[in-house]
């Protein structure tokens, strides 16, 4: 389960093939691991290391730097309430308190049914719809208590499934293009053209 499945492995190899240096695929593969398991497992980090030519420790060193890469299980929906200045000036901390009450968990917590993890996040670039939030990095706002309750209810009954895939699924559009031309080939072409 935690190493890449056959289908995920072929997607992973495709991603690796896009870059002149396979290690550039480290972060995209961490996202892929999250798409498979909801978070980046130890086994996935080991597998990613094998695919990009790093050690599992190096992959973890990278993964642990980034807020979006979860090294522990999270809910199906990661709800990020922005409290940075533009949202704060329009009531974000009140929304955050409401969210804690509505979901019944403190910031950082996951609901017992495993559906929601609540986060307080930094600016998400949705400041003209402040106070704003993201669910699995899809935007919502402006929010107040009532709208937040509605959002949670809609997520619970599945009416937003099309717009908000489970946590970890980031880019649902696959690359459709010929293979990236290797840099050595481009170097050679350029040398011939005298560029």
């Amino acid at each position, binding site marked *: 389960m935690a190493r890449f499945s056959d289908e995920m492995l072929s997607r992973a190899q495709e991603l690796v093939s896009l870059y002149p240096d396979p290690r550039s695929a480290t972060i995209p593969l961490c996202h892929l691991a999250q798409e498979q398991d909801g978070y980046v497992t130890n086994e996935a980090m080991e597998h990613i290391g094998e695919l990009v030519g790093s050690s599992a420790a190096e992959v973890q060193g990278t993964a642990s730097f980034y807020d979006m890469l979860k090294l522990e299980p999270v809910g199906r929906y990661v709800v990020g309430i922005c409290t940075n200045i533009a949202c704060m000036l329009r009531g974000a901390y009140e929304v955050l308190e409401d969210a804690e009450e509505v979901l019944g968990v403190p910031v950082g917590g996951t609901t017992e049914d495993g559906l929601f993890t609540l986060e307080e996040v930094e600016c998400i670039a949705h400041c003209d719809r402040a106070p704003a939030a993201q669910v699995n*990095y899809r935007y919502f706002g402006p929010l107040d208590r009532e709208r937040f309750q509605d959002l949670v209810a809609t997520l619970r009954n599945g009416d937003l499934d099309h717009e908000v895939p489970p946590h970890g699924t980031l880019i649902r559009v696959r690359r459709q293009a010929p293979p990236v031309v290797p840099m050595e080939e481009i*170097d050679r072409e350029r040398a011939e053209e005298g560029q």
Partner: protein
Amino acid sequence: MIERIVGARLGYEDSETLERFLATGGDLGLRKAVLEMRPEEVAAEVTTANLLGRGGAGFEAGRKWSMLRKAPRRYLVINGDESEPATFKDHLLVERDPHQLVEGATIAAYAIGASLVVIYLRGEFALGLERVQQAINEAYARNALGRSIFGSSFSVDIVLQPGAGAYICGEETSLIESLEGKRGFPRIKPPYFPAVIGLYGEPTIVNNVETVSNLPWIVQKGGAAFKALGQGRSTGTRLFALSGQVKRPGPYEVEMTKITFRDLIYGDDYGQGLLPDRSLIAFIPGGVSAPWFFDEHLDIPLGQDEVAQAGSMLGSGSVIVMDDTSCPVRSAWRIARFFARESCGQCTPCREGGAWIDKIMRRIEEGEGREADLDLLLDLCDNISPGIKWPPAQTTICVLGPSIPPSVSAAINHFRDDFLVHIKEGRCPHA
């Protein structure tokens, strides 16, 4: 008539579709570039345009390109890691006009002879990532990307790279580290900027999303037409992101230098002023790294040099408005807390200083402060950025650390009484 360049399609509901793109002049810039112009002619138009980088630093794009080390292999990286608080223009451009971004990136790749282009977008832009991938796919399908673009001798690939949540990766050397699969630690520079030693050690140009989104227009209409807009060094238009306590926050594309902050905040076409019975206490002219502005700065035009001469910066083009119901101590604390959270931790002044300032500001806001804290805060600011002046002195590898003092010192200098009320009454008077 307000000239719109990067935001020309934003009035259309379907601005992100290929149909709308092609019906509104899409591809014309790229076709002209690869079929009728030599790369150096494209670069010359951008130099004539005096296009300033739209990411925050405002460096001339043409000059940046001219500094590229002449090596057989070179890279173009598009910086779409927009994370400066209250900045949301690139979010808009990637989601609502992804084809323009891909076209602009391809033009830039042609001008500098890039071997490969990577568009690095903020991981939190889930929809934007999907739309840009779609635009890339569609560009390959109509030969606007890939081998022999539009039948010319120019070939290039574009790869889309998602970030994973780290403000620091907007800093170009940190972005390159991230793109190499590492933690986003900024590199020491000078002497070697990315144009000399960048991605995989090869010369690399890093351009912002909005910067390259201007290129299709510049190629079509010419650099001189772009330069005819605006004034002095501030040419063309810019997408300003207005947020905070105004009636109508939003993105507004305006010709550089032609309107003032008063127009942007109060004008009928823009912010439409504050909520009823409220008054302005401060605004930030260019992202939270910038020193704050007050009433007396309202009539300064939205221009690079005009704002710099007044002691702040236009930065990322985000204007944040605070009215008299807001607490300046709380606002300054929230900004300091952001930098403390986002410090990469390499340099002591930023890592330790930021964390201290966050804690001290928080205790003042929560009514636990002491009078000596004000001097302590200024002393910490002075240790991060000696002299607490503008532009800031730097004791750190990158400018994240020196971005902490401006808001803290502005708040202490202009709202000292508010701080003292917090300390004396043991509570926030605005809570």
